[in-house]
């Protein structure tokens, strides 16, 4: 049997093995994401989704034995995950079918409501280590999806008809050389006109619309010359068919539109996938809450909660609203909001914030604010606003496209005019050639194509590019700022040492400690329970939690106490501490918890938040690449200094409030550094959006991510290294593409202008220049395949 890091992983693996799905381990490309105990234990919350009122929006009841709904799955990181979930669910009683869309992680399930409940589906998914949540916000993305389908159809039409037009054109060109019956030529031209009509009416519509829009606001967008070119080509050809005299340019129109629609499609696709993946990270708040009415708890949708309602929040659940505690006391993990990984204790009268996790005991809260009014969403809005102020890093192609297009229109107009005035018989074909050959297709493809190839190759290493500029900026970054909590360290306490102080061996002490902590969900408790995995734990009674200080209980009629030194002294007046006990040799970043019975100290447990191994690798790499590194943390001075020394980071700022973080960043930016900020708490959001590039390290569910330029889907911080390498490759490829596109346009336009390029050659040249760009960009995808095999 393999060893497992925690009970969660073990349980998941046993379920997988038990269902005969071990193939998953052979096929996966990335290690699975560690299941989160807190979320996995939310069985109660899952049950909430069984209520009909809650299901109203998103479950479609097709008939009595078949319901359908979409679920958003988090934790998928390669195709093997998809296979695992689908196959596992297919084997579950009551499920008709389960299908996952790998590109947006949405799962469509059809099941029999008589035999299986929604909570059963959610639980099944969590048993194999993923999280499913009902996908209720479909409408937001339906529009984008519709747009995508529509674009695809336009491409299809232009491709299918274009192919046919090509056949006719070849016949006509051949006819020019070898002779053709005038009657057949006329027939072919009429067929061409018939075939090009749907392309003009259907496929080209977005360009005409865009052109009209940009003319209305007085700007020369790319749609203007495109529309102008195809309109001119069409009208001329139309006239030629009607008059039965002159050239037709149907092939040029079809080819031209096909390529340019393809470019648009690639762009739109990147955008949709981007916003989808972002969304999976933002679904932080629960959809269900237990409302207390006359001491009876009832599951209701969070949206129905009103200020003044009483809500019961069980341990392990996320607080759905802002409110005041009216009953009970507990610890709360507010890391989502503060970035602080240690829990905060709160008692009656204190306020709790939506998005924090209750990790102690059940509490009742009175709702103060819901929805948009919560602190969480106000911070999000703050971050959104800050994002709007971000200095826009303009893309090279974009910045020159404007005047380039204007220039092209001008040149075309001049050639039109000179042709007309000079009595040149070829004036029309020459003007069309100029318009077609100068299409900034290659130029406009150059950047987005390379960027999307670059970003999709990065997804393999768990880095998600949320904003298009991220890759460009990452290549230029010369200063990386880290937020310590949870970014460079593991962000959770692990038990690193048990010091026995009274003759008992460490196993006995750990067993007692585990028994005392068995009912708690505090990080310390989890860490101890993990250690005591193979030790038999004694029965314990009368467990009493002293919020924030410690825990006490009886085992075999003896009292035991566990907690901080202050707590033990308070509980047992006779207890003696030696100063050596209070300090661990190389402490600073460590937390010590003591175990005692009524008479003496039994053991000291030393916990630490350890630095990720990848952090060393990353900082070394950054130093080698002469990228400056700064540590910016809200933690205690000694602690930050300690971490900085270990990682050999010279520049660090400790005890920073969010405002101070932004100030430091502002200074760096003023100095002219290109700053990348790597952070994870939402309190970093203002700083994150200020930096040129923001990389958010996603915890399981994280809100900062909404605003980040890049998101790390796993916690392997060293993945930033290949990201930087790939970003630089991408930049190189973009430059090659742009140089090529400009060279092409600047040689082709003069040639077309003097009449050396007929329109059909212009269309081929335009297409070929785009193909070169496509092929060059696809080299970035090949690098992805290479690095993937290296990892294996």
């Amino acid at each position, binding site marked *: 049997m393999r060893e497992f890091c925690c009970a969660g992983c073990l349980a998941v693996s046993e379920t997988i093995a038990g269902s*005969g*799905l*071990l*193939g998953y381990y052979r*096929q996966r490309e990335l290690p699975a994401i560690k299941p989160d105990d807190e979320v996995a234990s939310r069985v109660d919350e899952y049950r909430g989704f069984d209520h009909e009122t809650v299901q109203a929006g998103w479950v479609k009841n097709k008939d009595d034995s078949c319901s359908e709904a979409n679920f958003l799955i988090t934790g998928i990181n390669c*195709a*093997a995950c*998809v*296979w695992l979930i689908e*196959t596992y669910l297919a084997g579950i009683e009551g499920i008709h079918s389960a299908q*996952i*869309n*790998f*590109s*947006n992680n949405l799962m469509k399930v059809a099941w029999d409501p008589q035999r299986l409940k929604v909570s059963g589906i959610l639980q099944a998914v969590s048993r194999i280590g993923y999280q499913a949540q009902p996908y209720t916000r479909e409408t937001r993305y339906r529009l984008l*999806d519709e747009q995508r*389908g529509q674009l*695809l*159809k336009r491409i*299809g*039409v232009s491709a*299918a*008809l274009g192919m*046919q037009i090509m056949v006719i054109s070849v016949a006509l060109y051949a006819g020019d050389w070898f002779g053709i*019956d005038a009657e*057949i030529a006329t*027939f*072919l031209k009429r*067929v061409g006109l*018939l*075939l090009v009509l749907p392309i003009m009416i259907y496929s080209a519509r977005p360009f005409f619309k865009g052109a009209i829009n940009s003319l209305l606001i007085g700007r020369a967008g790319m749609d203007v010359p495109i529309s102008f070119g195809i309109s001119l080509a069409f009208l001329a050809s139309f006239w030629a068919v009607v008059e039965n005299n002159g050239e037709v340019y149907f092939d040029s129109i079809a080819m031209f539109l096909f390529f340019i629609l393809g470019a648009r499609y690639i762009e739109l696709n990147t955008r949709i996938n981007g916003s989808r993946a972002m969304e999976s990270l933002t679904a932080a708040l629960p959809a269900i809450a237990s409302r207390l009415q006359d001491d009876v708890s009832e599951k209701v949708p969070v949206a129905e909660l009103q200020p003044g309602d009483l809500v019961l929040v069980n341990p392990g659940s996320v607080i759905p609203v802002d409110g005041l505690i009216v009953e009970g006391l507990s610890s709360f993990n507010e890391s989502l909001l503060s970035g602080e990984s240690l829990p905060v204790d709160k008692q009656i009268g204190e306020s709790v914030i939506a998005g924090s996790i209750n990790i102690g005991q059940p509490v009742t809260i009175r709702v103060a604010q819901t929805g948009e009014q919560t602190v969480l969403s106000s911070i999000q809005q703050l971050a959104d606003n800050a994002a709007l102020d971000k200095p826009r890093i303009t893309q090279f192609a974009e910045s020159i496209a404007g005047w380039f297009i204007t220039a092209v229109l001008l040149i075309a107009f001049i050639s039109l005019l000179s042709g007309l005035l000079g009595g040149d018989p070829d004036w029309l074909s020459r003007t069309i050639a100029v318009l077609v050959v100068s299409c900034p297709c290659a130029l406009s493809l150059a950047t987005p194509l390379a960027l999307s190839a670059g970003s999709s190759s990065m997804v393999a290493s768990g880095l998600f590019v949320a904003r298009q500029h991220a890759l460009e900026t990452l290549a230029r970054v010369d200063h990386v700022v880290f937020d310590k909590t949870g970014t460079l360290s593991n962000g959770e306490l692990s038990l690193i040492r048990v010091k026995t102080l009274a003759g008992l061996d460490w196993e006995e002490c750990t067993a007692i400690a585990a028994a005392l902590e068995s009912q708690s969900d505090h990080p310390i408790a989890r860490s101890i329970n993990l250690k005591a995995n193979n030790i038999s734990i004694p029965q314990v009674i009368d467990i009493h939690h002293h919020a924030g200080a410690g825990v006490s209980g009886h085992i075999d009629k003896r009292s035991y106490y566990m907690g901080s030194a202050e707590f033990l002294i308070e509980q047992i007046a006779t207890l003696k501490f030696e100063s050596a006990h209070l300090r661990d040799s190389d402490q600073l970043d460590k937390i010590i918890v003591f175990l005692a019975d009524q008479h003496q100290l039994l053991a000291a447990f030393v916990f630490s938040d350890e630095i990720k191994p990848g952090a060393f690798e990353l900082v070394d790499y950054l130093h080698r690449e002469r990228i400056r590194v700064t540590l910016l943390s809200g933690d205690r001075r000694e602690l930050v200094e300690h971490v900085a020394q270990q990682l050999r980071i010279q520049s660090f700022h400790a005890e920073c409030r969010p405002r101070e973080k932004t100030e430091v960043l502002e200074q760096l930016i003023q100095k002219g550094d290109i700053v990348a900020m790597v952070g994870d708490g939402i309190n970093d959001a203002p700083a994150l959006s200020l930096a040129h590039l923001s990389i958010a390290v996603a915890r399981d569910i994280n809100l900062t991510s909404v605003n980040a330029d890049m998101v790390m889907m796993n916690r392997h911080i060293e993945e930033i290294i290949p990201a930087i390498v790939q970003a630089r490759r991408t930049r190189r490829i973009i430059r090659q593409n742009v140089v090529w596109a400009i060279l092409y346009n600047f040689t082709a336009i003069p040639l077309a202008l003097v009449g050396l390029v007929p329109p059909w050659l212009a269309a081929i040249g335009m297409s070929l220049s785009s193909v070169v760009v496509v092929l060059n960009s696809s080299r970035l995808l090949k690098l992805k395949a290479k690095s993937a095999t290296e990892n294996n």
Partner: protein
Amino acid sequence: MEIIYLLIPLSIILLGLIIAGFFWAVNSGQFDDLEGPAYRILQDEDELDQQRQSDNKDQQ
């Protein structure tokens, strides 16, 4: 060459059918996931069955 007066209209009708088929495919969501199917073909049920068979053998 009079045959093209028949063949070309025929090919246009065929083209109409092709486009109708393509529209149907887009509308029914066959182009929604362009990544997954590439892997799906490698992960068919055979492997599952083998696994279960060998499990059964182990138990026997």
